Structures are given as structure tokens and as C-alpha cells.
């Protein structure tokens, strides 16, 4: 029994190469064309990988040929970026991939969902048998354990998600929070949408152009406020997202401080994504006000990434433990002792060293 993984990822191939192999095959077609016993295709924007089980060795070229979108292209052109992991290394690779240790953004959450989807699709088509079933179920368990027992997925790593994440750290639930979007730019719209998806129900939009404000308000389910009336809103709101094209700061400590006197016990979170900035940096000195401009959001994103990288070693330990345990358990399950001469080569050691 040969267990192997053949693929290419952002580590080995650029997007132009990757796209030559993405979407050209299905798990079922690989089983049929390459002669595998079981196969599963994991195709995402950063990787195209085939996990397969076969009775005899199947070459990398053969799998590459199955994956190619255009049949007239010579697979040898693409052979170099392909990697191949066999037996225990294949198990380890899958566990690392599912745990987002091999991802472009370490600790990202999408890959686990994509792996689950790929498994479901292969299972439905009948391409997954007992071997890959066990392998992927264990991979999902490992990924969950890594996320639970390490900080690998802690902290947001993109500007928009950092803003939403910080807001959540300050306010907890968003259901009774009031948000004002000042300036109807694309980033502020994305941030506003993210806040709404997390439960914000009171969203106000203000823009120099009232039409644009009304348009955005309607799109996100909020209400438009005249640009002349945005400042007094600071007495009520909890979150201010600002991204206007103003050349001078719209909000200064002198303007804001008197408005906050009546709301001393409620924090105000200001996300200033405008360049030049809409909010005077001195505003951050006011008690209960937390001002984040584009640079500070970027800095928090970098800190989160650094934190995630610190967690890789701990995650690798969890992966290694599971690899050993899985290899042992799968060997026992598929090749129970005592082994006959006929099956001796399929024993525990065969998965470890394998010709595979």
C-alpha cells in the first residue's frame, strides 16, 4: 500500500504555474486515470495537492498529467515545482497543511474549511476509502487541537480584521453598540460590513455627499446622517470609522473632549483609515478613547503574525505526536499482527520507511 502526496504550493510555484493545474481534475478522475485505490484533491488559491493511496508506485508525472488543464502541455515543464511526500512524510505534511502551519499566513482558518470541503467532495464521489478517511479525520482533529492548545490563530492579521478584532476586545458583544462611518470609502465599508456581520445593529453613515452616504447606508442596513451633524454623534456612538479625503484633521482633542464628559464610563474606539489622517493623534490621550490609524493597525497585524510564528514550535510538537500515533494506529488497523508472509511488507515499518 502506497500513501503519497504530490502537489505544488505557494512555496514552490508562482500563481501562473499553479493555475495550470488547478481545476483540471477531480478526485474521481485521478482515481480513474492514474489507477489509485483512493484519491483526494485539495485545490486552493495557494496549493494544488493530491493525496492518494495506490497498490503500486505512481509517478509524479502521471499525477501531474491528470491535474493539467491543457492536455497538450508537456507535464515535464511543470515537474520541478512539484513536491512528493510519501508514507509518514505525507501524513506529517497533511497535518501541517490542515493546521495552517504551511499556509502563507500562518494560522489562517480558511485552509481547514477547504480541506473539509475537499474531503466531502471526494467522499461523495466515492474516491475516498477507509485509508484516506482515517487520515483526513485525524488531520481535522490535529488542526482543531493545534488551534485550541496554541495561540496560532490568535489575533487578526489584516487591517480590516484587526479593527474588528480590537473592537471586540473592547466591547465584547456588539448588539447594543452604535457605529458611525464617516466617509464612504471602500475600506470603511468593508469594516462596517464586518461589524454588522458580528452583530452591530445601529450603524450610521455620514459623507460629504449625502447621496453616497444614503447609498452606503442602504447597502449596509444603516441610516444616513448629514455631514454637518456627524460631530455631535460622538456623544452617543461607541465606534467611529473614518476615511474622508479631508486635508486637515476633522476631529481634535479640543473638539472631542467636551463631548465625552457625559459619557465617561463608555469607551470610544476610533478607527482612522484616512491618509492624511482625519483624527488628530492627540485624541488618543483622552481618557477612554482608543485611536488606531492605518499604521497602528498595521503594527498590530504584524504583532499578531509574530505571535503566531512564536507558536509554530508548539504546534509542530502536537503534529509530531499525532503523526507517530497515527502511523502506529493505521498500521495496526490495516495490517493486524500476526502478519502472514503475504502481508509482511504492509506492516508498521512499511508505512514508516516505505518504498513508498
Amino acid at each position, binding site marked *: 500500500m502506497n500513501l503519497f502526496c504530490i502537489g505544488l504550493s505557494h512555496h514552490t510555484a508562482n500563481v501562473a504555474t499553479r493555475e495550470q493545474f488547478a481545476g483540471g481534475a477531480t478526485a474521481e478522475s485521478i482515481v480513474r486515470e492514474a489507477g489509485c485505490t483512493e484519491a483526494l484533491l485539495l485545490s486552493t488559491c495557494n496549493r494544488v495537492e493530491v493525496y492518494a493511496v495506490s497498490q503500486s508506485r505512481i509517478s509524479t508525472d502521471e499525477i501531474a498529467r491528470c491535474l493539467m488543464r491543457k492536455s497538450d502541455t508537456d507535464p515535464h515543464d511543470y515537474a520541478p515545482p512539484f513536491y512528493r511526500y510519501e508514507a509518514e512524510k505525507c501524513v506529517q505534511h497533511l497535518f501541517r497543511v490542515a493546521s495552517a502551519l504551511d499556509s502563507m499566513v500562518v494560522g489562517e482558518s480558511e485552509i481547514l474549511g477547504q480541506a473539509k470541503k475537499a474531503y466531502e467532495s471526494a467522499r461523495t464521489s466515492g474516491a475516498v476509502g477507509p485509508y484516506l478517511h482515517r487520515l483526513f479525520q485525524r488531520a481535522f482533529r490535529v488542526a482543531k487541537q493545534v488551534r485550541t492548545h496554541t495561540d496560532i490563530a490568535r489575533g487578526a492579521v489584516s487591517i480590516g480584521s484587526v479593527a474588528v478584532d480590537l473592537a471586540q*476586545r*473592547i466591547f465584547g458583544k456588539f448588539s447594543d453598540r452604535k457605529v458611525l462611518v464617516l466617509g464612504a470609502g471602500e475600506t470603511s465599508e468593508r469594516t462596517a460590513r464586518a461589524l454588522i456581520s458580528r452583530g452591530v445593529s445601529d450603524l450610521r453613515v455620514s459623507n460629504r455627499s449625502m447621496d453616497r452616504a444614503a447609498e452606503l447606508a442602504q447597502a449596509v442596513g444603516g441610516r444616513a446622517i448629514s455631514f454637518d451633524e456627524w460631530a455631535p454623534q460622538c456623544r452617543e456612538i461607541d465606534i467611529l470609522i473614518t476615511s474622508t479625503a479631508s486635508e486637515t484633521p476633522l476631529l481634535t482633542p479640543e473638539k472631542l473632549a467636551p463631548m465625552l464628559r457625559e459619557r465617561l*464610563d*463608555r*469607551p470610544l474606539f476610533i478607527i482612522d483609515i484616512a491618509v492624511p489622517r482625519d483624527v488628530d493623534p492627540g485624541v488618543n490621550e483622552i481618557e477612554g478613547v482608543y485611536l488606531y490609524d492605518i499604521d497602528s493597525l498595521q503594527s498590530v497585524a504584524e504583532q499578531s503574525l509574530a*505571535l503566531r510564528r512564536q507558536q509554530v514550535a508548539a504546534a509542530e510538537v502536537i503534529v509530531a505526536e499525532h503523526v507517530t500515533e497515527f502511523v502506529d494506529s493505521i498500521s495496526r488497523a490495516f495490517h493486524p499482527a500476526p502478519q502472514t508472509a503475504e502481508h509482511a511488507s504492509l506492516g508498521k515499518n512499511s508505512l514508516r520507511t516505505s518504498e513508498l
Partner: protein
Amino acid sequence: VDRYLLIFSTACFLAAVVRTSVALRAGIFRLGKFNFLAIGLGFIFQTAFLSVRGHELGRCPLTNLFEVFIFLAWSVAAIYMLIGPAYRLSLMGAFTAPLVVLLQGFALLAPIDIRHPVKVPSNPWLEFHASISLVAYGAFALACIAGVMYLVQERQLKTHHLHSIFYHLPPLTDLFAAITRLLWWGFALYTLGIVSGFFTGHPLPRVQVGAALGVWLLYAAILQGRHLRWLAPTRVAALCIIGFSVALTLLWGITFTAQMHSLP
């Protein structure tokens, strides 16, 4: 035997402190069950100690400064065990354990376990007064701990430097709500403690009454400032730390003075 129980208890709390310190130094603080289990075990040993001492004395074990400190540490751990799960238990434990270690460590090392030459007769009102006041101190201690957590998080948010511990702290507004609730609980229990003091049948020493009223007024002022929104949350958090430091110093003073007076 009872001192060994206390040493085991302190060792459990110390284990939680060491583990947290190592994690913080490595920059990879993570929530886990270890702290909660260590504190739980420490709490069991504390309870066993108080029970053994209580049986030995034939009354609530609050007859000297040593016992007062242990009872206070027990109150802190008990309130944490009760409310901890509501606010990310392990993290509050990470802040609670050092306080308990300080209280118990001091009690164990300082020569303050001075036994009364004659058996102190049981007085239910006096025992109720002393124990309920110490439970109130436990609530004030937890408010102080929540205040520290609030200020740590607030500082990190202001400076935009987020340590790994930041991601395990409860939301700022939830933490402030917790501080307020703990202050109210502590204040109500402390008021009950003071009132019950008038039913003990003993003449009340002026210094003790003055100190107790001073602490009561301090917390009343903090709560009033919070209620009328005169005080910003950071001030309330800082005052919780100051308030508990003052209360603890006065408690020490009161108990120490009482102990001196009761000795022949």
C-alpha cells in the same frame, strides 16, 4: 499538621504563579486548566487547614493575625472559584494566585502565629462579624485584581503594543462591569460586617471603628463616583488597587493592635 496543610496549599498557588511567569516570559501565555486545578487544590488544603485549626480552637479560626491572613487568602480563593468561570477563569487565576502566595507566604514566614495563652471563648456575633468582614475583603481583593487586569489591557490598547496575554483578557467593558459588581458585593458584605460588630457585646475600640469606617467611606466614595459617572473606568480600576492596599494595611494594623492588647 495544620502548618503542613498550609505549606502544601501555598506550594499549589506558587505552582500557578511560576507557570504563568514562565509563559509570560516566553511570550506565549495560554489559557489552560492547570491554573484552575492548582488553585482548586490549594483551596482544598486551605479549607482543610482552617477546619483543623477551627476544631482545635473550638471556634472560627480568627484569633490572631496569622489566622486572619489565611482566612483572607481563603476568601480570595473562594470568591475566585465562585466567580472565576464567569470571567475567563484561568486568567483571573493567574492574577489571583500571586496575591494568595503573598498573603500565605507572609503568614508562614512572619512570627505572627501567636497562640492565646487562654482559650478564647466562642462568640457567634464576633465570629460572624470577623468572618463576613474578611469575605468582604476577599471581594475587594478580587476587585483589585480585576482592576489590575483592566489597567494592563487599557495600557496595551492605548500604546498599541499587544502582548499575547491581551488576547486572553476579557473585553474591557465586561471587566469594568465585573469590577463594579465585585465592589458592590464587597461593600454590602463589609457593611453587614460593620453592623454586626455592634452586636458582639464587646466594647468597640475607637481605633478599630475609625479604621473600619475609613475603609467603608473609601469604598462608598468609589462606588458613588462610579454611579454618578464622575470617575472614568481607569480611575475606578486604579482606586480599587489603592483601596485594597489601604484596607489591607488597616486590617493588619487593627488585628495587630487587637492582638497586642489581648496578650498578658
